[in-house]
């Protein structure tokens, strides 16, 4: 085999890379700027944790926008407006997902539509489980997994998925190729300095994404003692040995939501959508310009009226089961 149909699908090579670049148990804390500088390169396939507006690693993505990268591919099961920021600025040339929309009743993703419809960005459409199994195969260290997903549909045909026959039953299924992304960005509720991380509420695909990826940067609402993880170890979703960098970043998913910490800021969605409705992709670029004019996420957060943030936090806490 010389060229793979699906970039990032060679688990043998991904493992050899992992064996070369071990992640020993050290203090992995660093600023977002350093983590992104060290672990995100031009041309990377980036797996974005969370889904839609849930636990999106917005601070880390903002730092990528701040530093600037080229020819990125963004992979995410369900995609929200964060992808548009990369498309409109020309940093992403490809989006791999099962769904793109803004949510909250905002309807279609206008910038993405514009770029896809005019052929300026490559849009690779997978089923939701297809994206999930790509990460799962990568996490399991195998080059493919069999599934019914996308059989008979134009998705499977367009992607040129191969069939695989069960050697015991003869049943033919789709072979979903593995994916070991170049780097993953994931936001969590808490982690220790080694990167052992706990996720509250919905995990989505983040455990598989973390293990599949060749490099992993996590941002976390808080850093905790390792011993505190031992009180509820079943909640630890990401083992430290999979982690390259731990970025302490309160409000790290803002303006998206972080389970148990804050809801999504619908007003920020409105600001973004108003800009896009008024000026199309230029509106998105202006949004990015305003965002990256802040030296970091903390400084961006300081620009948001505190009462808005307090309400998002109070509403989230008020919803928690008791």
């Amino acid at each position, binding site marked *: 085999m010389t060229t793979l149909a699906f970039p990032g699908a060679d688990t043998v090579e991904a493992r050899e890379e992992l064996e070369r670049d071990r992640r020993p148990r050290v203090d992995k804390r660093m600023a977002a700027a350093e983590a992104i500088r060290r672990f995100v390169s031009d041309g990377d396939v980036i797996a974005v944790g969370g889904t839609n507006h849930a636990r999106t690693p917005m601070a880390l993505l903002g730092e990528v926008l701040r530093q600037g990268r080229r020819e990125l591919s963004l992979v995410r099961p369900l995609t929200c407006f964060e992808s548009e920021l990369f498309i409109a600025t020309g940093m992403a040339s490809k989006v791999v997902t099962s769904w793109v929309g803004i949510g909250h009743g905002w309807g279609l993703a206008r910038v993405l*539509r514009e770029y896809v419809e005019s052929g300026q960005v490559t849009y690779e*459409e997978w089923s939701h489980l297809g994206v999930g199994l790509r990460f799962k195969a990568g996490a399991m260290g195998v080059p493919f997994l069999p599934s019914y997903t996308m*059989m008979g549909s134009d998705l499977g045909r367009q992607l040129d998925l191969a069939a695989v026959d069960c050697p015991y039953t003869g049943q033919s299924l789709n072979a979903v190729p593995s994916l070991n992304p170049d780097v993953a960005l994931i936001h969590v509720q808490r982690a220790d300095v080694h990167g052992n991380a706990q996720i509250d509420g919905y995990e989505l695909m983040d455990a598989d994404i973390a293990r599949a990826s060749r490099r992993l940067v996590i941002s976390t609402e808080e850093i905790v003692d390792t011993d505190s993880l031992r009180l509820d170890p079943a909640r630890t979703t990401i083992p430290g040995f999979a982690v390259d960098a731990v970025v302490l970043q309160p409000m790290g998913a803002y303006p998206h*939501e972080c389970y148990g910490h804050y809801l999504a800021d619908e007003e920020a969605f409105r600001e973004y959508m108003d800009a896009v409705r008024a000026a199309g992709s230029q509106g998105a670029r202006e949004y990015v310009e305003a965002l990256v004019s802040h030296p970091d996420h903390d400084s961006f957060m300081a620009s948001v009226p505190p009462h808005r943030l307090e309400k998002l936090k109070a509403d989230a806490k008020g919803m928690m089961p008791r």
Partner: protein
Amino acid sequence: MTTVDERRLAAQRGLDPRPDEIMTISASRLLEDGKVMFAGIGQPLVAAALARRRHAPNLTVILEGGMVGIHLMPGELPDSTNEMRAAIGAEMLTTATDIFLMAQRGFFDYGFLGVAQIDMHGNVNTSLIGDPERPSVRLPGPGGANDIISMCNETVIVTNHEPRRFVERVDWVTSPGYLTGGDARREAGLRHGGPSWVVTDLALLDFEEETRRMRLRGLQPGVTVEQVVAATDFELVVPDHVDVLDPVTAEELALMRHLNGETDQSAENGEHRAE
């Protein structure tokens, strides 16, 4: 069955159902008690909440974000299948991938889908309009829809009945129905499930066993066969006799609006407890 009193009551209140409300209520009636439903946001979730309140208190509702047995609070139905509001109060939280793998194993009785286009064999398009290589409209895509219709034991499709949606051949098969009909779905390797019902503002439809062509099974009250045929841009199978569906009752409508958080005070009955 609707009683005269209820109809009068509805009329008095000016509670005429909108087309989307008729669809949601018709869909909710299909849900049997004790079963498991893979739901999406919007109509499916409202239909589920309504069924749970009326005739299916033990319906288990699943969301693709990893939620099993979700809590449906009147007026606070979630905006997304992947958010805190959807997760709080679930009986079980697992991963998103795991939800679809449970579907693949065969645990889910019902899937629910909306469509941009649907064809005579129940194939669904939610990806694009026009030439696939250079679409004139890029739509959100499958999300969980391709997997839902491929893996759930049956899939109910809920959509407005319009010629631009009911097309001879969808521009893109996002989510496979019976493909080219007959045994084509099974021959393509999809051994289970498939679209069972299509619920619209005009009618209830299913698929003929042999040919797997879409068939008219019931008319919404006041709708004629001719209207349905005119709103469908392919040849429907129309049996000699087609039943008229039970009309939406005032009680269904009021309860549905209450669950949906609409500020119709007449629908409020003082209680605001969780499902």
